């Protein structure tokens, strides 16, 4: 089997998770305090991408499936929720739900096709399917082509949360992120998550133990797609924009990079990776193509010398899986 070589240290013992609760407490406290000294719009962008990377990590880190087309879920949910909020006049919570549901549905279709092959074929198939969605988004009448869907109304959530207030919006985004994060945490540590890890380590063995691995892989794929969609839909409402950038293959590459840099198969890694990459993009934005070159360099360095990622190395240093 191909998936045995991930460098993930000693499997997490489900009995001693105290340090993960502590780490979660620190992370949450940081996000609560952060808007005082960090620009909230940057934080919201990073939180959306952090959720996206966590959803992606559910697949690569815990099932061993490398999807190279996750932008299709981010982008589709963005377009659908933007359209729902702007043209259909949906309130934000319904718009986000509609976008998420659209991505989940797309996840069922794409997943059913992609899990028919393994390893690098899986990566190539997801990449090709995402490219198909990209061309669809480029040509479809409602997506606005190169312009995207602009000036999406933020609206009033649940009838009383006015999202045009930046801090209200921040708390809503944080709540959505924490919901997604805890859901992924719950999935990973559930019996279902244990089966996923068994599939990652040795799929044939899992099959021989009587698990229908295809069902598990498909469910994991759909969950990952839906959570990526949640991130994309939230992002569309926050930035009032759904555009081709979010469905392009470079976005699929970026989420791989965030997860790899933070640490494949770590709970907190994707969050750290997303923050580092988004910060880098913001600070280096004026240098044009240098961002691409630096991203490429990070890929090369991570693969050759730093396969555990930032949080993976930290966890190894502390001798506790994070």
């Amino acid at each position, binding site marked *: 089997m*191909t*998936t*045995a*070589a*991930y460098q993930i240290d000693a499997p997490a013992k489900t009995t001693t998770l105290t340090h993960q609760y502590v780490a979660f407490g620190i992370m949450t406290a940081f996000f609560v305090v952060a808007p005082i000294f960090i620009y909230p719009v940057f934080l919201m962008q990073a939180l959306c991408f952090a959720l996206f990377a966590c959803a992606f990590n559910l697949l690569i880190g815990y099932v061993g499936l*490398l999807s*190279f087309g996750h932008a299709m879920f981010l982008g589709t949910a963005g377009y659908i929720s933007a359209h729902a909020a702007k043209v259909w006049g949906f309130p934000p919570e319904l718009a986000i739900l509609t976008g998420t549901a659209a991505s989940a549905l797309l996840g069922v279709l794409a997943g059913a*096709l992609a899990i*028919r*092959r*393994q*390893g*690098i*074929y899986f*990566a*190539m*198939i997801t*990449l*090709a*399917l995402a*490219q*198909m969605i990209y*061309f*669809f988004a*480029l*040509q479809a009448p409602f997506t606005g082509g190169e312009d995207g869907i602009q000036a999406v109304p933020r609206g009033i959530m649940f009838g009383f949360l006015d999202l045009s207030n930046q801090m209200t919006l921040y708390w809503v985004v944080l709540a959505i992120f924490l919901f997604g994060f805890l859901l992924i945490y719950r999935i990973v540590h559930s019996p279902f998550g244990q089966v996923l890890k068994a599939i990652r380590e040795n799929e044939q063995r899992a099959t021989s133990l009587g698990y229908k691995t295809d069902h598990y892989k498909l469910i994991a794929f759909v969950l990952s797609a839906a959570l990526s969609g949640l991130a994309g839909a939230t992002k569309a409402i926050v930035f009032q924009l759904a555009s081709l950038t979010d469905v392009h*293959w470079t976005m699929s*590459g970026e989420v*791989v990079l965030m997860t*790899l840099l933070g640490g494949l198969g770590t709970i907190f890694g994707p969050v750290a990776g997303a923050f580092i990459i988004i910060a880098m993009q913001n600070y280096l934005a004026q240098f*044009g*193509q*240098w*961002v*691409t*070159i630096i*991203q*490429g*360099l*990070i*890929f*090369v360095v*991570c*693969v*050759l010398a730093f*396969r555990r990622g930032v949080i993976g190395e930290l966890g190894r240093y502390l001798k506790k899986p994070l």
Partner: protein
Amino acid sequence: MFELLGISPQALFGQLLIGLINGSFYAMLSLGLAVIFGMLNIINFTHGAQYMIGAFVAWYALQYFGLNYWWSLLIAPIVVGAFGIVLERTMLQRLYKLDHLYGLLLTFGIALILQGFFLNEFGSSGLPYPIPPSLQGGQNLGFMFLPNYRAWVIVFSLVVCLVTWYLIERTKLGSYLRAATENPTLVQAFGINVPRMITLTYGFGVGLAALAGVLAAPIYRVNPLMGADLIIVVFAVVVIGGMGSILGSVVTGFALGIIEGLTKVFYPEASNTVIFVIMAIVLLLKPAGLFGRTA
């Protein structure tokens, strides 16, 4: 018949020709990918960038050294192949014991670096590369006008594909290669230097990409982004054909190029996506690919 369909024969044959041209590139690139995958178990994401560099080498050779197209056909594969060998020796080699996915990620990173570098240097608008004088003009075939250069590209890439097939399937060197693909340890035990063979295979596959780049330069202009979108289509071609057979990838490449061309005539909206749709259908009916062995 053409009147019935409401399509002019010029448009039909014109698109068929474009389809054949695209098919030549699909075939050459997927062939290189398949050869590399067979030996290295790595999907070479840098393939598109190496194709682009091939075109840039041709442009550079003409611009600064006055070396014409025919020299470039020879030089570009050697230069880019040598660059590939350096990559294999210094980086890819360290990944063979790890999961295949790391090879994909590493080559993706290298592709980003190369693409970013060329975009910085040359911008995204592209540079013109002239058709060599001896291949200018064209033939009037009665039903259509056939530019000489395009005919040359189709014939030349067919020859390259067939020579590659002959090398791998019919020569002694090729038999070593196929044996090492099946069982490298055993072949090494017979005293054959397998690591060197792997290195040279990578250089060869990359050289094929560069050769395709030189062929493409007069048609598509020389552009830093020319390989990025193409490589994704080629991945779909590889999934459709399966990487088990050399002739399989050549046939699939040309066939898909033609289908894409025909789609442009009959239903232009779908011309960008038709190959991906075919991929989805093939995955449903024959998951291992048309010519593939089950992994």
